[in-house]
């Protein structure tokens, strides 16, 4: 997917003025609320009219202010999922799902109804009225409805923000699976860095109606590490858990991690904050933390008053830890030095 956007729109006291070009399948639009993210996607979708500018999607001009060209939303083939599911209240789940499918020309129909229903696991809901669905089910139906419209670009406008934490990370795998299975590129809009880390490869960083930079979620998280109390969010995808004394052991690289929040599902996504990792210069004899990892320092980076430490933990295991400047000196942390990282089994938060 290739998207070129130059847009200006002024209303009330707000002025959106953006210019960017992105290529890729998983693009994020990040920024605090009120920075113009939703306005931007509304303009790309054609739901409101810009003052001037240009929108070109995969070589096709959707809007050009100088030529007075403005393709109607129904002809743009751009799908959208909002914060709230916004399902049609007068239609059944099936009626909602097929609404876009019915209106999609046969030439553009590439996604089969049954496949989407299977990936989203909503087959059992089919004949229900939409009022009888839970929040997570509603959002899955909304995602299915957008995907079945066979869009060439999906605009995900904070699709997880209205869901509570546990539900949020339940929806994530569905969202990722459905987009990768049917190769639908998307713009993922959110103010959450964690969601950006999970959902995107590239990120447009928006602030006050302007695009500050084209970057990655990783770079943003590192830059923000010093500002946030939580620090850097390490995301670990771990497989094949084994129950051990009431907690779970997961394989990670060539080591094992003991995790209290584990369960019997074959795969899980865990969050480990950089502030939860303690570094030792040499092997501590005895320690209450259940995980002690031998690591090599790849590099260090500055983040405000803190120092981030990139660790190679063997195999493909990477972690980012965070220490104070004093600690760097005392431990003699530098590129290539060996350290031990201690992590409590309770420090991991299971997201998915």
């Amino acid at each position: 997917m290739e998207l070129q956007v130059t847009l200006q729109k002024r209303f009330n006291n707000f002025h959106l003025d953006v210019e960017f070009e992105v290529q890729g399948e998983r693009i994020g639009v990040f920024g605090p609320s009120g920075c113009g993210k939703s306005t931007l996607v509304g303009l790309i979708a054609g739901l409101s009219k810009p003052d001037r500018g240009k929108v070109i999607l995969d070589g096709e001009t959707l809007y050009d202010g100088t030529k007075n060209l403005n393709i109607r939303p129904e002809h743009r083939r751009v799908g959208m999922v909002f914060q709230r599911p916004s399902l049609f209240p007068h239609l059944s789940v099936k009626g909602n799902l097929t609404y876009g499918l019915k209106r999609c020309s046969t030439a553009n129909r590439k996604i089969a109804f049954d496949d989407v229903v299977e990936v989203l696991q909503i087959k059992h809901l089919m004949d229900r009225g939409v009022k009888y669905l839970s929040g997570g089910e509603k959002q899955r139906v909304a995602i299915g409805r957008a995907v079945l419209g066979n869009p060439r670009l999906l605009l995900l406008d904070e699709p997880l923000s209205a869901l509570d934490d546990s539900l949020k990370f339940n929806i994530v795998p569905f969202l990722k699976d459905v987009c990768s299975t049917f190769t639908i590129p998307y713009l993922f809009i959110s103010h959450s860095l964690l969601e950006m880390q999970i959902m995107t490869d590239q990120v447009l960083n928006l602030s006050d109606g302007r695009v500050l930079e084209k970057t990655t979620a990783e770079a943003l998280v590192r830059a923000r590490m010093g500002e946030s109390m939580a620090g850097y969010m390490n995301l670990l995808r771990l497989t094949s858990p084994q129950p051990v004394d009431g907690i779970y052991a997961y394989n990670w690289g060539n080591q094992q991690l003991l995790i209290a929040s584990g369960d019997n599902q074959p795969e899980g996504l865990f969050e480990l904050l950089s502030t939860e990792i303690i570094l030792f210069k040499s092997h501590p004899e005895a320690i209450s933390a259940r995980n002690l990892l031998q690591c090599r320092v790849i590099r260090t980076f500055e983040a405000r008053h803190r120092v981030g430490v990139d660790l190679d933990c063997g195999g493909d295991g990477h972690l980012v830890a965070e220490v104070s400047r004093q600690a760097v000196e005392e431990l003699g942390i530098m590129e290539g030095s060996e350290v031990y990282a201690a992590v409590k089994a309770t420090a991991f938060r299971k997201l998915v």
Partner: protein
Amino acid sequence: MLGFTPADYSAILLSVKVATTATLLSLPFAFAVAYVMTYRRFRGMVALDVAVNLPLTLPPVVIGYILLILLGREGLIGRHVLQPLGIQLIFTWKAAVIATAVVGFPLMVRPMRTAMEAIDERLIHVSRLLGAGWFDTIITVILPVSVRGIIAGSVLMFARGLGEFGATVIVAGNIPGVTQTIPLAIYEYASSPRGDVMALSLCAISIAISVVVLVFHEWLARRMVRRD
């Protein structure tokens, strides 16, 4: 029953016929006006708003008189549109339909508009993005989602139509068996000596029809709530 004359029976039937026809005739126009007032921004919106709601505040007799002037033999519409087509409206039951439709129009538009204003804008956005054009969206989203307002508006107009007097008497007259509706018949009985019993009987019929309409409306509304 109750000693009704054939003319009384035809008044009862005519009332129902006029109110029903006026309601059905107005439905598409009222829906279109409610849609335009809710979703379109244009110059002259205030003028349209005032024009639609004017019958609510004008005396019905005034409306009747204006209609008479417009639709009559020498009127703007009467002379240039109706006469060449060979249509005679004034002093027929069709004139009563038009009078009823005009008087009840604001009552029909208002609940429709309220229902449309309550529709989540995103439903319309979603429908457009899923490939539905604006007309498709109106038929498949706005219409079914605002159906309660449409029913409420229809019931209001029907009920108002049963009671229409002032405008009807001017454009349709009070011809027993032809244009005489229940209110006109009651008026006639009330102003004639010893007509009290008949007037009261017609009042009872009028009340009965109104109760049936209101019960029907309530039943329909409850059924919809349950379906939701």
